[in-house]
Structures are given as C-alpha cells and as structure tokens.
C-alpha cells in the first residue's frame, strides 16, 4: 500500500516532467472516450425516440389487409384482392376473444371545397370505433357515432392539415359545411395532430366520414361491403401475436381456405414494425460505437507509443532505480501506473466532454438525452484497461532492462 502511494507519487512526478507530452497523450484518450460516450448516448436517445414514436401508434394494433390476387401468374401485390368485407370485421368482433375493438376502413381521394378554398385529400370511410382503435383523440368537437353510421349522416371529422388548408387562422371549423363530390358535409370534429409518421407521410392530411356515407356518397359502391383494411386493437395484456393467430383462424374459416391453401389476407402488427425499427437503431448505434471505439484504440496506441519512447529515453533512470534497490516489479508497476494515470485522467475528461457533447447534439437533433450510468462505468473501466493493456508491453520492456547496460546507456 505504502509502495503504491510512492509509485503514484513517482509516476505523477515523471508525467509532470513532460507536461506537453502527457497532455497530448491524454488528449488522445479524451477524444476516444468522449466519442464512445457520445455515440452510446445518442444511440440510446435515438432508439428511445423511435420507440416512443412507435408506441404512439399503439403497439397492440393489428392491421389486416387483403392478400394478393393471382391472375395468369401475375401477383397483384398486397391488398390487391377484394377479399375482406364488413362481415369479416363483424365476425372478428363477435368471435375473437383476444380483441378489444375492431374498425375497418376504405380510402379514396377527393377534392374538398369550402368557400373559396379547396384541397385534395384522403377520404377515409370508417366506423365510430376508429377513434379508439387507432388511439386517436379529438382536438375539437366530436367523432361520429353509431346513429350517424346507421343513418348515413353527411358529417365529417377533419385532420389538422386539412383544417389549416381550408380555414383561416382562428376560424372555427365546427359546423362549417364542406362540399365533396357535389354532396355537402357538416364538420363535427377535428382530430388531434399525430404528426408525421416515421415513414414521412403526413398523418393529419385526411378527412373521416362514416363508412356507410363514404361508400354511398364519395368512394362509390361498386363492391358494397368490401373494406381495404380491418384494424384491430388487441386486448391490453394479451399478446398481439396471439391475437393475430386468432384472427387468422377466424378469417381462414370464413374464407373457407383448405389447409394447403395460402392465406388470402395478411395480418401486420405494430409490434413487428417496432421490433424492426428497434433492431435498425440498435445496429446503427453499435456501428457508430464501433467507429468510436477505434478512436479509443488509437488513443491507447498513443499511450503505448509515448511509454515506449519514455522507456528508451529513461533507460538510464531505470538503471539508477534498479541500482538503488528497485525490483523489476517496481519498475513494471511504475510504468503501468503512469499509463493508467494517463488513461484515467483522459477517461474522466472524456466522460465530461462526452456528456456535454451528447446533451448539445441531443438538443439540436431533438433526441431525448438519455443519461446512462452503465456507459460511464464502462468508459472508466475501459479506459483503465486501455491503460493497462497498452502500458503493459512498454512496462515489461522497462522492467526487463539490464541494470548494468542501462547505467551506461547514452
């Protein structure tokens, strides 16, 4: 213990004798550690951001779309067939146990007119349950209800983008009458903004109408009762995966598919998308961390380089120390301690700089700042081991020097 303190004192003295050199060596480690801390922090922040965005879509959301239709060997792609119907959705609602609510939609686009303004937007015909299933909320007014649905009421609920396009700032859209395809619709509510999706589309640029009304007045009823998507919200606590299996069972039965036949529909789950996005960000951040680790490695090589120079330069000093009673292990420990002091000081400064850097970048990139004690402990241990690892070779070289030759070294 006493010896360790002496060594520490001796090492600090030696490092002080070459201030500039020590500072530059430390700088190498500082940059390495700061880079690692920053990339780990930003990686975690980015994945946190992606996760929370996906969570806002609702992780227990399942979307059923029709399968492909094959005509003369050509597949039409997902959703090409018109195999899903309102009755399928009703059956799911009735029979599936792992399901909380079911909605279905059909979409088209149309020009919406109001006063002197007009805007082409997505018209989405859906059920009153859509609000709940899609995890949306009203910013103003109400969503349409079962009575509107039954009566085919000409009422509309607007997305935020559409409100901005059709109305003056400060104008109250509730009660306004819009014209769509020669029919008039009364605005009864405005959806709360969802923001752009993670795939870049504007999820607020739409107009919702009751399914029956939409089918009859806007989208055309060439195929009555056919839906584009069935949206299912799984029961909380129930796994979305189990719910999707149940949906498959029920729909296969209803569509009278033989065991050998492929599904004529597909069930997509948000969980699936969340997992994919999660692994994408994980891969990205580990790649970045790999790059950052390289700079730490370079810093470590810097320590090794400086210590090798130092051992050569201080050969005579090593000889003197040995002559006055230093054992090989004393010399070894002294150089290791010097290496560790360099790397630990570098590590400390690097952590502080890294945290500050993460916070600054996170602020400008609008990513949440994630403070991870694990990364800091890791960085301290890692920089310490970098010191030991890269210090060991020069230290061993020093401790194996022959005292007689060292004393004569010029």
């Amino acid at each position, binding site marked *: 213990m006493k010896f360790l303190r002496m060594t520490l004192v001796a090492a600090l003295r030696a490092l002080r*004798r070459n201030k500039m050199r020590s500072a530059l060596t430390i700088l190498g480690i500082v940059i390495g550690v700061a880079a690692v801390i920053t990339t780990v922090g930003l990686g975690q922040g980015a994945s946190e951001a992606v996760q929370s965005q996906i969570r806002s879509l609702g992780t227990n959301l399942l979307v059923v779309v029709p399968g492909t239709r094959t005509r003369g060997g050509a597949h039409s792609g997902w959703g090409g067939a018109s195999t899903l119907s309102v009755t399928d959705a009703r059956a799911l609602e009735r029979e599936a146990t792992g399901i909380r609510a079911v909605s279905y939609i059909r979409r088209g686009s149309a020009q919406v007119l109001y006063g002197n303004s007009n805007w082409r937007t997505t018209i989405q015909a859906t059920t009153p349950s859509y609000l709940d299933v899609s995890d949306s909320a009203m910013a103003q007014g109400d969503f349409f209800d079962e009575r509107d649905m039954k009566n085919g009421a000409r009422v509309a609920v607007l997305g935020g983008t559409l409100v901005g396009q059709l109305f003056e700032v400060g104008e109250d859209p509730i009660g306004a009458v819009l014209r769509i395809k020669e029919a008039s619709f009364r605005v009864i509510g405005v959806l709360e903004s969802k923001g752009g999706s993670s795939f870049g589309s504007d999820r607020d640029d739409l107009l919702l109408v009751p399914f029956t009304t939409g089918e009859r007045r806007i989208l055309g009823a060439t195929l009555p009762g056919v839906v584009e998507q069935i949206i299912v919200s799984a029961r909380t606590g129930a796994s979305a995966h189990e719910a999707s299996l149940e949906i498959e069972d029920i729909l296969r039965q209803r569509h009278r598919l033989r065991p050998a036949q492929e599904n004529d529909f597909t069930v997509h789950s948000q969980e699936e998308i969340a997992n994919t996005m999660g692994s994408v960000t994980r891969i990205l951040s580990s790649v970045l961390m790999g790059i950052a680790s390289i700079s730490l490695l370079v810093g470590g090589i810097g320590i090794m380089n400086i210590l090798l120079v130092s051992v050569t330069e201080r050969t005579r000093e090593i000889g003197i120390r040995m002559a006055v009673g230093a054992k090989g292990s004393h010399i070894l420990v002294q150089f290791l301690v010097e290496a560790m002091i360099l790397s630990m000081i570098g590590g400390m400064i690097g952590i502080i700089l890294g945290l500050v850097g993460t916070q600054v970048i996170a602020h400008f990139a609008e990513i949440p700042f994630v403070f991870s004690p694990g990364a800091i402990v890791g960085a301290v241990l890692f920089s310490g081991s970098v010191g030991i690892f890269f210090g060991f070779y020069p230290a061993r070289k020093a401790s194996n020097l022959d005292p007689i030759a060292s004393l004569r070294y010029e």
Partner: protein
Amino acid sequence: MNPLIETHGLAKEFARGDIRVLALRGVSVSIQRGEFVAIVGKSGSGKSTFMNILGCLDRPSEGKFVLEGQDVAGLSKDERAELRGQKIGFVFQAFNLIPRTSAQENVELPLIYSGVSRAEQARRAQESLERLGLRDRSEHHPSQLSGGEQQRVAIARALVNHPQLLLADEPTGNLDTRTSLEIMKILMQLNRAEGLTVILVTHEPEIAAFADRVLTFKDGEIVSDEPGLSGEGVLPASLPEEKEAKEA
C-alpha cells in the same frame, strides 16, 4: 569477525556472438569492514566486471561471493535488488542523477523501494544532504548544480540508506583536479570517521593513492595486492586552505 566481502575463484564469461570472453578468471580476495580499497587496472582488465559483481548488479558464472556471511552468487534478481537497496551505496562517474528532479527527490530514491514512510524519507534525505553540505541545494535540479555538487548529491543518495559498503566507480572521472580532491576527501572522511567500507575503481594513480589498499587487475586476475599510500603525499597543502574557504 567475518570479512565483509569474500570471493573464491570468481569467474565471469561473456558471449560476444560466437566468441567467449573470460572477463574474470578466478578472483579470490577478502575485504574487511572499514577498509578503503582501490581497484586499478587498464580498461578490459576485468575491474568493472568485478565491481558489478560486488555491487550485486551482475552474478558470476562461477565461484563464490559472500557478502556479510551470505552467499550472493545464488540469489535471484529480486533478492539482489533488495540487497543493493539495503547494503550497498553506488557512486558513478557520470553521477547518474535523475534529470529534472530535485536533489531532495534524488536522494529519497533508495528509500522509496525500502518501504520508509514519506515523512521519514524527507527527514533522512535532508539529513544526508546536510551531511554533505548541500542543505541549501535540496530543491535544485541536477542541471542547476556544478559537477562537484552533483557528485555530492550522488554520495548523499548512496549514504541515505546507511549502507555497509560504498562502491565508487571512477567517481572523479568527470571532475577537474580540485573538485576531484574534494570528493576524495569526502570519501576518505566517511571511511575514517564512520568506518564505512569504501571500494573505489579508478585508473588514475593519484586517486588510487587515497586508498589504504590497492588491488591491481590484469586480464581478469588480481596481479598485485599492496597497501596504498592512504592519502599521504597526495593530500596537497591546498586542502587545509580549501577547508578554511568552505568554513568561511
């Protein structure tokens, strides 16, 4: 009483590529406590090799080396390091002080490796520096000291652990005549007043003349072992003057 140093048939062989060189061929000598011995000889005579073995820096290829009743030839590297730290003080031709390090810290160096407390280190280093009249030089770095002062710091360092044996390898080789005499006088005083065993390697007869016994090496063997002049005739009349000057 046992002699401090006893060697029997000490031999050292070096391999220079394929050629084997015998640096020492059977040296047997015994040195008592309190002796002042000069080892002289031309370069290549084996005197430095002998000195390195006495200093436990090197081990003989053959033969026996007993230091204070302990056979040193068979000791490991670490055991020899410990022995050097405790029993032997070194003074070199090139002073061998650590650069950019204060005199005080240089003198403390042997204490670091013998587990002496920090306060005790400082106290003993101060004491040792004072003994050599370097009290006001303790914070100076070697580059700020004259050659004579540097060698005195080196002697202070050699003495700080109270060794049994002081080995001086050409201690005056880098000094002018006047400073050389000063250093030799210090070594003589240490030997006379404190009974310190001093072994001195030199090729200068005037320096060897300070010793009580002179061993002459030639081709790896001791060719003569004679009493020295003990400083007689080599201590010039200038010395008392110098003493006065120092006291003034």
